[in-house]
């Protein structure tokens, strides 16, 4: 600098250096061994079972882009809790729930999970929707040895001692859908999905199975979850002229896709869509009639089972009801009853004892979709496979049903077209 003013001495520059040194010292002393050591025991559970209530946590996005779907899950969880409480509670204890907002933000899901487990000391957490939210919750429940009940169909290839999955894994939804398409004589397929874990993984599996079935994949397009302009991608569908479109788009992005699809002159007669995320709840919200398109689910409102009429009736009468029942909300309803069954089989709210009861097998829930059985090893449940076609009332006419219930196979061990080395790598990474 040009001026030559004299200034105070700058010995104080030593202060930052000193603070840095303190940091290094701290880094040294707060340590614990590295890679070779066993991960230390998880924090002691603080679940309080002394009173006549038991605390459970509900974690759903009540704000943000996924609120439209997750609010219903939250409401049906409240209904299930009310029902169980009216029926005497779990192990004689009334459910006291703590509702938290995941805000469609994955780090928030992680933070709230930690809060529910360590501050509120809940015995189990129910909720989540996107696979991203589940992936955010997973390390936290594992670290704190908590329980998380996840109610939405997903991409499989995962299992955790701390998570129970009451939605479908791939062999209960996507593989039946592919079998159905093959039986219909479909030769060419176009894949359209949102750009995140579920569609990417689901499509990786679809491509492997399509090769096995002799179905040609003529295109694969992704659009981010929060974007809904599908015009460019749909023009590629028009150009490719596939027999069917496999839709793994999630949330309100579907509205943009459906609009672009009809704007481009595509119809269910020429190029039908089969979806894995459009249910009774979403179909009327598409902004365009979607009659004639297909969806693959396990539960439909139109399902003829002994428990379904009562379930629909109770839901319609519930104050926060959306008026229709759908697969993810039914799976959420199951999740609370599954927890009740597990706690009662274990005779305890302790996580390890509940997992032990699950491992012994024979846990069933008499659900609206039928009697589902828990697989104590992989923590998924058996489910019926169903394909429905949307009718003019935005309900589904069931066009195909699996023979009996399909046992969950998250790692696709029963399918030799799935590469064994990938399965091994994923199982190894899961620990």
């Amino acid at each position, binding site marked *: *600098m040009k001026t030559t003013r004299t200034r105070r001495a700058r010995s104080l520059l030593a202060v930052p250096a000193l*603070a840095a040194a303190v940091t290094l010292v701290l880094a040294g002393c707060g340590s614990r*061994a*590295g890679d070779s050591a066993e991960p230390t025991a998880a924090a002691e559970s603080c679940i309080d079972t002394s009173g006549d209530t038991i605390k459970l946590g509900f974690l759903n996005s009540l704000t943000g882009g996924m609120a439209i779907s997750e609010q219903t899950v939250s409401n049906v969880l409240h209904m299930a809790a009310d029902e169980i409480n009216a029926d005497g509670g779990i192990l004689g204890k009334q459910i006291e729930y703590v509702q938290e907002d995941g805000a469609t933000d994955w780090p928030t899901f*992680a933070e709230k999970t930690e809060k529910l487990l360590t501050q509120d000391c809940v015995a189990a957490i129910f909720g989540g929707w996107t696979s991203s939210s589940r992936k*955010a919750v997973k390390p936290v429940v594992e670290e704190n040895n908590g329980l998380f009940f996840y109610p939405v169909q997903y991409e499989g290839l995962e299992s955790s001692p701390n998570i129970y999955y009451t939605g479908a894994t791939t062999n209960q939804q996507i593989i039946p859908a592919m079998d159905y398409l093959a039986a219909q004589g479909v030769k060419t397929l176009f894949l359209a999905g949102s*750009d995140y*874990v579920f569609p990417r993984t689901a499509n990786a599996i679809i491509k492997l199975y399509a090769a096995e079935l002799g179905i040609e994949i003529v295109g694969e397009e992704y659009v981010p979850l929060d974007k809904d302009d599908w015009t460019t991608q749909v023009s590629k569908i028009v150009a490719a002229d596939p027999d069917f479109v496999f839709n793994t788009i999630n949330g309100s992005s579907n509205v943009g896709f459906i609009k672009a699809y009809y704007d481009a002159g595509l119809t269910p007669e020429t190029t039908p869509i089969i979806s894995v995320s459009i249910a009774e709840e979403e179909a009327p919200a598409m902004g365009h009639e979607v009659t004639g398109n297909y969806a693959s689910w396990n539960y439909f409102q139109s399902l003829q089972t002994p428990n379904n009429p009562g379930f629909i009736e109770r839901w319609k009468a519930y104050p926060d009801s959306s008026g229709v029942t759908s697969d993810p909300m039914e799976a959420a309803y199951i999740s609370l009853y599954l927890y009740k069954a597990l706690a009662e089989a274990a005779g305890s709210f302790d996580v390890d004892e509940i997992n032990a009861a699950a491992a012994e097998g024979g846990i069933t829930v008499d659900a609206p979709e039928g009697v589902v059985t828990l697989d104590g090893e992989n923590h998924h449940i058996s489910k019926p496979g169903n394909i429905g076609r949307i009718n003019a009332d935005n309900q589904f006419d069931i066009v195909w049903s699996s023979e009996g219930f399909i046992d969950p196979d998250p790692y696709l061990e029963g399918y030799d077209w799935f590469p064994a080395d990938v399965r091994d790598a994923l199982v190894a*990474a899961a620990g």
Partner: protein
Amino acid sequence: MTKLKPWLPLIGIGVFAVLLLVVAPAVLSMHWINNLGKYCCWAIVAVGIGLAWGRGGMLVLGQGVFFGLGAYTMAMHLTLETAGPGSLPVFMILYDPSAPLPAFWEPFRSDAFTLVAIVLLPVIVASILGYALFKRRVKGAYFAILTQALAVALAVLISSTIRETGGDTGLSDFKYFFGFVLDDDANKIMVFMIAAALLIVCLLVVWQLGRSRFGELLIATRDAEERVRFLGYDPANIKLVAFVVAAVMASIAGAMFVPIVGIITPAEIGASASILMIAGVALGGRASLFGPALGAMAIGWGQSSLGSSWPSGWIYILGLVFILVTLFLPMGLSSLSGRAKSLVWRSRTAATAPAAASAPVLEEVKK
């Protein structure tokens, strides 16, 4: 008393350090230590913004870019450390098991490279960006919009490259932090202490810069850039230094955010996240030393506690507070005491000497 005055900020930093490094770990539960660690990260970004915006007059609306550089540098390293040598991160196996590790991931296996990159990457990016902008005399709203656009661009880039970066789902499930098991309370406290100590260091740096000749030049540039130019200094260089220092602070904050929160997604670095970083600074008082840090921590605390009680109401509360502060306290909450003092002074002088028209209110910033 007057002799003590220049040292008051230093004493304040000392008290703050004792509170964070000694009191907090002793009295808080693990849950709140973790949360406080997260607030410290936001506070570090805020201290940098305080320097660039409060003292330098550059409205940096896109600090998410530098926060993201640091966060993803750290997250990539921790992901690789968790996967183990020679293994792919789980999300890459899911999408395409046959693809090799992208080449740009490879260097992040190294501890040393990661640590250097956390500091050097923002220096390089901010230098190029700052040089191009300040030499062309881009300022005001144009500068703000440009930085904001970059934050959006980086978030979109990460979202759309799911195979390479984890996309919208982000990177999570870190087991180790430079060899330390993260699932261990002692190590969590250590990580918190590092973040808190870094915050203290950043405060010291800004305090030291503020009392240096550079600090005076920076404020002069903010208030009268042309005059500084006429005096023979290049304002572009002065602004560049402040901009780069703020960028490095944001990057360090991002890097510490990752082991503390355990997940990083593009949503944490995009437009709304960047605006939230600014909001804390505006709330606390952008030109003061402690205002930005305390404001950012207050917003972080509000988000986790009020956000729990009123999920949909919290954002309105924040909006309301923000409007009230901008309307009535444009220099943030830290200007409250100054205002109160001048009011007292005014009423006293008004009583004794009605002739004195108005007290000399210390305006730190013109706009």
